[in-house]
């Protein structure tokens, strides 16, 4: 149980009582949970911030790269151990809900309504926070996004890298 309480029940519970709001409500940001089981909307807001400078400049290529990364993230999440998956799920749900946003970002404004510099400020505040849970949120998302983006050979052109081709050549 301990590992699953990514944001401790104590903090969330206290805030719930103090603010009198629901812990989580998808209606707050107009996300239809049935159509967005995999948090693609949330991630599509965060990816351009994490991957600024890495994504292709050409719009169509950029869109393809984002889709590939979202697919890769979905795949990564599908193979995570239960405990890790539960923690990540909790983080996503907090970022999609008003109270969670307030706790993690100090504002109830949905992430999709924030501009790039506000999102950078948010990541920076987590990254430099003195609270381990904020830093963990930043690190967890960062690693998920970076590993998923650079898992695709299509995204290696800026690295000037390609894997050796001898295996394919021999077939």
């Amino acid at each position, binding site marked *: 149980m301990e590992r699953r309480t990514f944001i401790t029940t104590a903090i969330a519970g206290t805030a719930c009582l103090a603010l009198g709001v629901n812990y989580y409500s998808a209606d707050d940001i107009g996300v239809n949970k049935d159509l967005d089981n995999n948090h693609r909307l949330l991630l599509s807001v965060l990816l351009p911030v994490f991957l600024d400078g890495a994504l292709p400049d050409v719009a169509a290529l950029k869109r393809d790269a984002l889709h590939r990364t979202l697919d890769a993230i979905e795949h*990564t999440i*599908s193979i995570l151990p239960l*405990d890790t998956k539960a923690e990540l799920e909790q983080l996503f749900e907090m970022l999609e809900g008003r109270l969670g946003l307030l706790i993690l970002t100090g504002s109830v404004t949905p992430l999709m309504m924030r501009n790039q510099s506000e999102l950078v400020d948010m990541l920076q505040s987590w990254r430099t926070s003195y609270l*381990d849970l904020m830093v963990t949120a930043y690190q967890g998302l960062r690693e998920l996004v970076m590993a998923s*983006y650079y*898992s695709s050979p299509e995204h290696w052109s800026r690295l000037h890298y390609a*894997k050796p081709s001898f295996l394919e050549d*021999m077939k």
Partner: protein
Amino acid sequence: MAIKDPVKAGVDSGWAHINAAKLTESQTLEADVVIVGSGAGGGVAAEILTQAGLSVIIVEGGPLKSSSDFNMEERRAYPDLYQQAAGMKTTDKAIGIFQGRAVGGSTTVNWTTSIRTPEPALAYWAQAKSVQGLSKAELEPWFEKMEQRLNISEWAYAPNRNNQALKQGCEQLGWQYTVIKRNVKGCWNTGYCGMGCPVNAKQSMLVTTIPTALAAGATLVSQAKVIKLEHHKDKIFAVKAEAVDGNMKPVGIELMFKAKHYILAAGAIHTPTIMLRSKLPDPHEIIGKRTFLHPTLLSGAVFADPINGHSGAPQSIYSDQFVWQDGADGELGYKLEVPPIHPILIASKTIGYGKSHAELMEKFNQLQVTIALVRDGYHENSQGGQVRLTDNASTLDYPLTDAFWRAARRAYASMAELQFAAGAQQVLPISEGMPYLSSWNEAKKVIAEMDLAPLKTVVASAHVMGGCPMGEDLKLSMVNSYGESHYFENLSVMDGSIFPTSLGANPQLSIYGITARNATRLAEKLTA
């Protein structure tokens, strides 16, 4: 002409391999010896016991993958071959742990570095941990045997540019360095050992001891996760396992294994986990404690010329300049090595995001990376971590102590000094808040003041050791110096979990040699 896959050929020729995930009903299997785990310990034990004429079942939680599955891409290798898709972390997430999870265990994915157990480690175990019979002289024949068996020899070719930088830096500074011995035969020098050797040159358990054991009649059961040992008084009477899919999710089939003798060789996280789940007697509360990681720091360096750290034998040079300099139980020492440089590995084990991270990634081919593996488990302020059970699995709680952070600061300084001496233009210690440093003079000042903290400083590990220590003193150990349980007459442990401290060296050869010794003795006992 495609590369031959000896494992596929063996399975086709009739090796007894059962993929538990494909079973349709529960099964009970019996043999003289059941071995849990197929890595460095399990593989060597399987070969020796089979050759002694004993019937053997090897039970492995991971899948059977072989060279035709190894496509040199991290996106396939990590989920297929590593624990938790290479994303395993300590409880507070401050240390990322790379550990194998497939037939062959970590030997399928390691970087082939083969080092005999350092003498100061053996001396410390004898003096402080009640270990007997493991002196350098007593172990020598076993190391010779395994070096011959696995074709372990000094890398005879030029180091790749990444390792060359480590060598140059040592030469410039007058620091000790060693050319690494590797367990390879006909190596193509491509640099993808960590994703499974695509040409079967690496002499991992997957292509050496396990095929020999299977050819001699042993049975391999893959994708069977051991849940617990059933025991009564001083005897183990069964191993219970469940079939799992490729992501370790149970598929609803149970397996039972029965044997005269049982060997745990599931590695230093899972061997203690199985013992804890089985509620084995542990009067001195030792199981799962004192787990060691060689927690490792990284230092990046930008060179003017191409480093191409993805290409060539990943590790061919190390420096022991700082490992034992303050004595075994003095300030923590560290071993200097380099890692291979591949896209996911570098993207995730660096810091930042957005433009700064993209710029770092654009220097991919100019990037040299040096690592410092901290020797844990000797100093009084370095007691390692603890494996604990969770609802679904287990977790390793590993607090990073003051003594570790002092070593980290010294290690960052040594790495920067070395990298500048080797000709680096810039050095980037991989820890939050650190800028690119332009000279050793600047680095000295900045590193002396740098903030170091869990989660802010990137710490990784590829060596899990301890948690079920050997020794003759029951207050200090779970098994004796031959890996035999103090509490069960038919249980042995043969993996890195028996080490009473970390090694100060990459562990595979220590596990091979000590297991060869212990499994030979067990074979003699069981066939007497």
